[in-house]
């Protein structure tokens, strides 16, 4: 068993270090540690204009604009499944809806099956301020998912403001020229792994005293073990699920073996 909120009164205990990141709102996972939902906002968001997906060699840039049905609908449609989920549900909050995070956190306080929330930061947000507001609104464990760009700089402030674990990190932002214009998206690819691993190692060395969760480019059990060796207590598997549905379950089994 792994405790992801060791510095907090409410626990978030997982039985396996493999988490499924941004896995829609599924609960279909018997062996993994926890299920992290698609990033959600308070109100529904239609998302970014097309194109939203631009493939590059060995990876893909994605910009969904946090398209999601809105938290009230998500809770309404999935409450029963979450109650019966064998693994804790961690509800992710999209950066685009940061002004509503405290309201959203309070809404989830009493939803059975929800074990924590994951706040998705970007460099434009004041992470410490946002964390303090959410901390005041909920006793749910808070995971702060940071941009790799500034994770090292803000990690300590996030811990001081109430984060129970740091997720390192969000997919790095990239750019491509599309039809003559700059197009920005987040990069999902195996090549992200070394970038995320470096950040995990650097922040481990800060000795912040809370669990670190590695995320980025994990496509195998060996990838997951590298993050654990670098100092992560757990890892999130994200876009690999698009290529091989069920890979999180497989990696969880292999890492356990």
């Amino acid at each position, binding site marked *: 068993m792994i405790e992801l909120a060791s510095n907090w009164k409410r626990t978030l205990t997982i039985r396996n270090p493999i988490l499924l990141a*941004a*896995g*829609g709102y*599924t609960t279909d996972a018997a062996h993994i540690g926890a299920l992290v939902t*698609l990033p959600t906002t308070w109100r*529904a*968001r*239609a*998302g970014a*204009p*097309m*194109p*939203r*997906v*631009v*493939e*590059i*060699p*060995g*990876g*893909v*840039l*994605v910009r*969904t604009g946090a*398209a*999601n*049905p809105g938290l009230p*609908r998500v809770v309404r449609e999935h409450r029963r499944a979450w109650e019966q989920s064998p693994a804790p549900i961690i509800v992710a909050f999209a950066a685009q809806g940061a002004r509503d995070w405290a309201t959203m956190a309070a809404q989830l306080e009493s939803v059975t099956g929800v074990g924590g929330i994951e706040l998705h930061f970007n460099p434009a947000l004041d992470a410490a301020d946002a964390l303090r507001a959410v901390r005041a609104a909920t006793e749910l464990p808070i995971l702060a998912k940071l941009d790799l760009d500034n994770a090292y700089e803000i990690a300590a402030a996030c811990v001081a403001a109430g984060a129970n674990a740091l997720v390192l990190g969000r997919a790095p932002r990239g750019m*491509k020229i*599309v*039809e003559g214009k700059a*197009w920005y998206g987040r990069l*999902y*690819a*195996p090549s992200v792994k070394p970038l995320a691993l470096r950040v995990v190692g650097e922040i481990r060395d800060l000795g912040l005293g809370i669990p670190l969760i590695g995320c980025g480019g994990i*496509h195998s059990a060996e990838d997951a073990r590298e993050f654990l060796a670098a100092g992560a207590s757990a890892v999130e598997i994200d*876009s690999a*699920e*698009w*290529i*091989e*549905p069920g890979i999180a379950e497989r990696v969880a089994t292999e890492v356990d073996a």
Partner: protein
Amino acid sequence: MKSYSCRVVENRNLWVDTQLVAFDAPDLSRALHPGQFALARAAPTFDPYLRRVLWLYASDGERVAFVFSACDPLAARTRVGDSLDLLAPLGNAINLDANARRVLLIGEGTRIVQLIALAHDAVAQAREVVLASSPVVGGGGHGVGVSPSPVADGGGYGVGVFPTHLLAPEIEYRTDDALSAELLVWADAIIASGSAELYRALASAIRAARYRLESGFARVIVDLPMPCGTGACYACAVETTRGAQLACVDGPAFDLVKFETRSAR
């Protein structure tokens, strides 16, 4: 959805830049219905990274054929005898109303290939079928960089006459005005595949010809890049009158009444 490992028995150019890939795969063939698609792993490595959308083209319970872009790397690297890793069936089958005796299928450019399976299915159900080719009216731009596909670019690349010898003789193939009042009044049901521009034009033409656009009368196929195919990534979210829906799990066909075409841009 299940995972299949299927051996390729045919891989060839079908028409313009449309590739056909076929498998002797009875289980898969029986699991798929017109309107549905499969996702194919493009490479054992991660380059190309994403799975490719293969649209059902024909299925007879033993053999199943799909179409995709001939420009996609999958077309060139696939050999007869190779095994492909497929996820299927994905999306919802297009079921025609039992009372729809006259079916109008409208395909914009090469997107017409997405309607061939449905056309043959409708003929097998003793319906009258008109397959109408629309010129490309869409501006393109969908999924730039992902599978520059005739079924992912918002309208198809070329305009030409689909090889009619590939169609059952009962299918009437038309290359004149696909949105003519004559056809729109004749039809009991319409399925279209094309760009948002085509769908806007179709809605206007139906209202002009039939005075109103009724729910259930016309459905449109929304073809966007679908990285996961399972509703997890939300990259294919579209706005409908029922809120955000996903092309991969709620579609790919949507009622034209409920579909707000701005979301397909």
